């Protein structure tokens, strides 16, 4: 009984264990089957997928070639720099954790950068303003593209009301964009400072833009300091995804001397990419390319050949094996034909000379009435205003938190005055019987005119809609009506675009529109720098802002170095304000380029006349291209573009003026070769050329030169002699024909290559030979327009008796190992055969005479001087209200010319100034004077000599 019971229990157990075993077998069977399916059936496929996932193609960037001068002095090279990058390569269990980790990692990096004075790369279209508000810094299609990217739309036209954010994203404000990024998008803690939130958002956004491409890191900061590198590398293990990457940045030594030639590099723009990739498919959107100058022109040589690599990467993107490697080839090195030492000496001498001119022209007066171009002086009050007008003193800094005592003093006075003037302006604009324009006080007239110009510049006043023949418009132009009348008329004629005004409704009458317009103008002008400058102008005039206060601001803003002694003297009155500024200008602590008064610029070209090589090609003022290459210093760029001395404009190759008397050798060659004169022909100068009505005068008028031969006429720069040659070329004594005369002058100017560009590799303006008034064209006036480099080619041909070269800035190109790739030699464009040897001799004698008779060159004509110099001065008049242009072209040694010099100082008063400069350049070139005695860092002494144009 008991036994059978136990037996049955046992059976049950066995059965239950059996069920368990059966369950095991079934389940394990399923697992085995699954193994088989994965490994045997699909194993190969999985392996293939894996391989595809981990192979990465990489392009290896090449090292950009260097740029050297003709003697191998390095001008442009690459320097090792460190960038800090971040990559989203962490694994997180939640989005919150991910945001928190990345944001705090970036914050740590930001604070490290801040401590060491490094800045993040910021190309973001939203700016954080000083007062903590946001604004867009992009407009138009760039802004639309930006908004579409931010909210994840493929195009702007798809945008509209977005449920997730609860507003129309197409019309999102900068604040909404930032709230979106800091909020739902990247969840940046509100506990962070606003500037940190802003910067974190920029970096997170850049990361998200890179996110879809695997293994691409985002650059936080470029070219950071060693301190930042050390601080970040120390904590790399807890900074997820952060890396320090080695990179090269472009450096320019001797920057300001060569910026006008070399240009600079930068990240390729979309348009550049489109153009360049048409010629060469190796360009990519992340490349650095030459943006201007030699960097741009020689880019294809300099950039080198990119390499490529096929690698296997692990899950963090680290390379574990290289499959294929094509090394990058470094770019070629470019050697310029320029001699760096000479270039720098010419630049410094040019600056000293210009400073000397400005220095000699400043008078201790408030205003100066001049009767002609040659006696224009610079009242010291113009210097005061120039400090503000050309942004030597920063108005932003004056109103900012870090303003000094004098800055605050001036700014407070300004603010008061601004309110008062705006009130007056408003009063004038709302008066029932306002004053007509021409009866206004000078300052109010300036403010009103500025208001109109301002409205046009921002598109409120549509200048294109104006009918210039309109009666009211003409009255306004002639100052016969009041601004109120003009603006009301403009509203009625729909010259005012009311959609740009802050108005509630479209259906308002014109009186209401006018009220809105007036409020709008006053509100806008309150924050406008241009208007502020005009206020300052009259405050300076009325001694409400004094020169000595401005001097103190120069110290406070560190424009000039702090100097207790001078400040004490200035404050006590022992040093007059006038003397203070003269001293600073003399010592070049305030440069003529900073003041941007006349003159503020100049140029100089030196050539080897035997080979046609360019030895110097100087444009003053220069700029620091280091700050434009690599990452653009936007503030510096803006300063340069607004600088009244126009540093981006190459005065040697782009600026054109009339050549003045430097042209007379062309006329001489034309006269003797065409047979209208011979070298012995004697022409009498009575001070006036009387063969035409209202005859032009010689520069010596009321004096005269008397009887002159060709050499004498060149030596004395006698205008009457060359008027006569122009007259004879025009067949004047038989039947005067302007076209015959001008054609002959053009023919000889063309022979000297003045009709075309010189062929250099950088931007060059097209020259213009005069096409009217052969008589004045004969003395280099009329409408001649040449560049300094064009005149350099011309004087080179005069010196070598007729060889006209095609210029090049390049001497040779080598590959990175120094093997010659290409040799550049100036080709002979033309050999002028038309002019006989004796005629050349007469012209040269004239040139020698020029220098012999000038004090500028007296050191070359002492008893034991071995080198004689020859040349021709030129003073050209273009505007009567501004000084004349000063030019000089010359060559040396006279017996066997080796080199030529062409210099020009626009608005440089008189050719004596350029002759002085050329004399110094000759001395420097032939080592006749210790360079230290020439390049003194002080404004040059300019004699009191003045002469009128045509000398």
């Amino acid at each position, binding site marked *: 009984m008991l036994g059978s019971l*136990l037996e049955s229990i046992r059976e*049950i*157990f*066995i059965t*239950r*264990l059996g*069920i*368990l*075993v059966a369950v*095991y077998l079934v*389940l*394990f069977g*399923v*697992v*085995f089957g*699954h*193994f*088989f399916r*994965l*490994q*045997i059936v*699909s*194993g*190969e*496929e*999985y*392996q293939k*997928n*894996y*391989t595809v996932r*981990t192979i990465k193609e990489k392009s290896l960037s090449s090292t950009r070639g260097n740029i050297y001068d003709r003697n191998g002095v390095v001008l442009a090279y690459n320097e090792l720099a460190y960038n800090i990058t971040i990559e989203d390569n962490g*694994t*997180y*269990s*939640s989005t919150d954790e991910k945001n928190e980790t990345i944001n705090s990692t970036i914050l740590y990096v930001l604070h490290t950068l801040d401590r060491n004075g490094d800045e993040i790369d910021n190309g973001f279209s939203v700016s954080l303003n000083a007062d903590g508000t946001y604004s867009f810094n992009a407009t138009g299609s760039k802004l639309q593209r930006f908004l579409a990217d931010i909210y994840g739309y493929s195009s702007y036209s798809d945008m509209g009301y977005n449920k997730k954010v609860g507003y129309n994203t197409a019309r999102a404000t900068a604040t909404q964009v930032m709230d979106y990024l800091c909020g739902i998008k990247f969840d940046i803690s509100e506990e962070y400072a606003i500037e940190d939130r802003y910067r974190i958002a920029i970096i997170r956004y850049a990361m998200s833009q890179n996110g879809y491409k695997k293994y691409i890191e985002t650059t936080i900061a470029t070219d950071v300091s060693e301190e930042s590198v050390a601080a970040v590398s120390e904590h790399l293990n807890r900074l997820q995804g952060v890396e320090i990457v080695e990179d090269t940045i472009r450096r320019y030594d001797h920057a300001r001397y060569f910026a006008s030639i070399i240009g600079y590099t930068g990240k390729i723009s979309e348009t550049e990419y489109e153009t360049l990739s048409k010629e060469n498919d190796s360009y990519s959107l992340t490349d650095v390319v030459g943006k201007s100058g030699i960097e741009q022109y020689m880019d294809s040589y300099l950039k080198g050949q990119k390499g490529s690599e096929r690698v*296997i*990467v*692990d*899950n*963090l993107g680290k390379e*574990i*094996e290289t499959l294929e490697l094509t090394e990058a080839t470094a770019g070629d090195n470019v050697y310029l034909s320029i001699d760096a030492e000479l270039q720098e000496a010419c630049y410094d001498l040019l600056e000293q000379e210009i400073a000397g001119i400005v220095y000699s022209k400043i008078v201790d007066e408030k205003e100066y009435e001049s009767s002609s171009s040659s006696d224009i002086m610079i009242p010291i009050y113009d210097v005061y205003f120039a400090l503000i007008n050309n942004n030597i003193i920063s108005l932003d800094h004056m109103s900012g938190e870090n303003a000094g005592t004098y800055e605050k003093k001036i700014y407070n006075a300004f603010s008061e005055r601004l309110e008062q003037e705006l009130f007056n302006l408003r009063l004038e604009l709302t008066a029932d019987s306002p004053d007509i324009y021409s009866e206004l006080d000078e300052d109010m007239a300036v403010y009103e005119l500025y208001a109109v110009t301002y409205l046009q510049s921002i598109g409120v006043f549509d200048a294109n809609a104006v009918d210039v023949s309109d009666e009211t418009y003409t009255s306004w132009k002639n100052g016969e009506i009041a601004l109120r009348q003009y603006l009301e008329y403009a509203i009625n004629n729909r010259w005012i675009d009311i959609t740009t005004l802050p108005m509630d409704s479209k259906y308002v009458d014109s009186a209401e529109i006018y009220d809105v317009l007036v409020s709008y103008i006053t509100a806008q002008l309150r924050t406008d720098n241009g208007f502020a400058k005009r206020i300052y102008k009259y405050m300076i005039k009325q001694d409400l802002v004094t020169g000595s206060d401005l001097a103190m601001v120069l110290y406070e803003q560190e424009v000039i170095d702090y100097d207790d002694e001078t400040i004490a003297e200035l404050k006590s009155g022992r040093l007059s304000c006038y003397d203070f500024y003269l001293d600073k200008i003399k010592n070049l602590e305030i440069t003529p380029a900073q003041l941007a008064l006349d003159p503020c610029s100049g140029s100089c070209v030196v050539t080897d006349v035997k080979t046609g090589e360019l030895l110097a090609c100087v444009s003053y003022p220069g700029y620091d291209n280091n700050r434009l290459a690599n990452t653009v210093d936007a503030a510096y760029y803006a300063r340069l573009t607004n600088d009244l001395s126009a540093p981006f404009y190459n005065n040697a190759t782009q600026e054109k003026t009339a050549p003045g008397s430097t042209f007379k050798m062309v006329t001489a060659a034309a006269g003797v070769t065409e047979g209208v004169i011979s070298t012995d022909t004697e022409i009498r100068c009575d001070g006036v050329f009387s063969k035409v009505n209202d005859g032009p005068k010689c520069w010596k008028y009321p004096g005269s030169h008397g009887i002159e031969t060709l050499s004498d006429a060149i030596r004395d720069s006698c205008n009457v002699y060359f008027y006569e040659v122009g007259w004879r070329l025009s067949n004047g004594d038989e039947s005067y024909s302007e076209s015959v005369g001008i054609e002959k002058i053009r023919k000889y100017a063309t022979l000297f290559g003045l009709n075309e560009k010189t062929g250099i590799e950088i931007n060059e303006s097209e020259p213009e030979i005069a096409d009217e008034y052969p008589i004045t064209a004969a003395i280099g006036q009329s409408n001649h327009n040449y560049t300094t480099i064009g005149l350099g080619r011309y004087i080179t041909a005069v010196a070598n008796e007729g060889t006209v070269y095609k210029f090049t800035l390049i001497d040779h190109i080598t590959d990175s190992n120094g093997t010659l790739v290409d040799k550049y030699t100036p080709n002979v464009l033309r050999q002028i055969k038309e002019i006989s040897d004796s005629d050349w001799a007469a012209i040269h004698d004239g040139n020698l005479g020029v220098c012999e008779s000038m004090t500028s060159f007296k050191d070359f004509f002492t008893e034991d001087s071995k080198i004689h110099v020859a040349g021709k001065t030129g003073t050209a008049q273009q505007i009567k209200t501004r000084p004349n242009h000063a030019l000089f072209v010359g060559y040396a040694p006279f017996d066997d010319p080796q080199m030529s010099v062409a210099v020009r100082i626009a608005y440089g008063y008189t050719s004596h100034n350029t002759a002085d400069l050329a004399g110094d350049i000759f001395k420097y070139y032939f080592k006749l004077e210790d360079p230290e005695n020439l390049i003194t860092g002080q404004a040059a002494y300019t004699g009191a000599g003045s002469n009128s144009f045509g000398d």
Partner: protein
Amino acid sequence: MKKKYSIKDYDFRLVILILAITVIGIAVIGSADASVQNKQIFGMGLGIVSMIVVSLIDYNFILKFRWIYYVADIMLLISVLLWGVERNYAKRWIVLFGIQFQPSELSKIVLILFFAGFFYKHKEKLNTTKILLISMVLAALPLVLVLKEDLSTTITTALIFITLLFIAGLSYKIVLIVLGISIPSFAVGIYVILQGKLLQGYQLRRIQAWLYPEEYPDDALQQQNSIMAFASGRLWGKGLYNEGADSVKNGGFISEPRTDFIMAVAGEELGFVGAAVIVLLLLLIALECTLIAIRANDLSGRLIGCGMSALIAFQTLINVSVVTGLLPNTGLPLPFVSYGLTSLVTLYTGMGIVLNVGLQRKKPGRG
């Protein structure tokens, strides 16, 4: 109570199986993370000593103290919740006397011993409501404590408990009723889980990621990579300790390669053959335990054998299913193979008890 054991009753076949699988495990750990290989060898030594010692102690003597184990276990589990150490987003470890270990691993063995004793004592009244309710409550307590941080251990432990209950003689009527209720409620449970109402955070996401990998790329990635590694081993594998760039493991794509995902490494480097051998060895260990259970002297011995068998079998099944994508991603070590001293030593200890059950086997004719 001293007992006389006969050396011929010592189940050397089981010992050899255990040693074999542990050695394979150590070899694979060496490939996954060489730095911990020696620790695992040390753990194996410790386990062997523990197994031999425990195998010589009468399991009935051990079972006497079952309530002490139970209470101590509950206290440990509570202390994990309070002072536990977090690793990989789960709080499962505790530091006692300078040693870091995982109480949930220990808990499985404790429950086997406890219920082996408990059901043996109440075997006559097993199918009464009272005993069933008490055992349910006693089982539920540790399960709930483990649930929050360790869903997979909870599932394994529950499966062990059900096995024990079934083997102890739960009436088929109740089995059928339970099945009738649990299958539909399981389905409902899954539905609720997917609505996100029951499970939280990573547990829910892992289930959703398993079902919809495209929508949860980050969470699905771990399993996708593991499957890729496992499958790419094909028949013979890429070889242990290989340095090839074609290896998913060398590319760093396998997370937790030495612990929960060691099967991905084994599959990749030893291929189908190696993976099958490992799983087969584990199945044989589970079957050997069942065999000992069949021959056990009494119900408690039988339950110990079956409990350990179930532990090995179910944990193996869940682990390899996760690695190969048959189940959602849950963290659970592969018995004897994954790196982890707590798991290894407790398993060896449990096997020691099973060996003792084998030593006291029912002799034919004595029954």
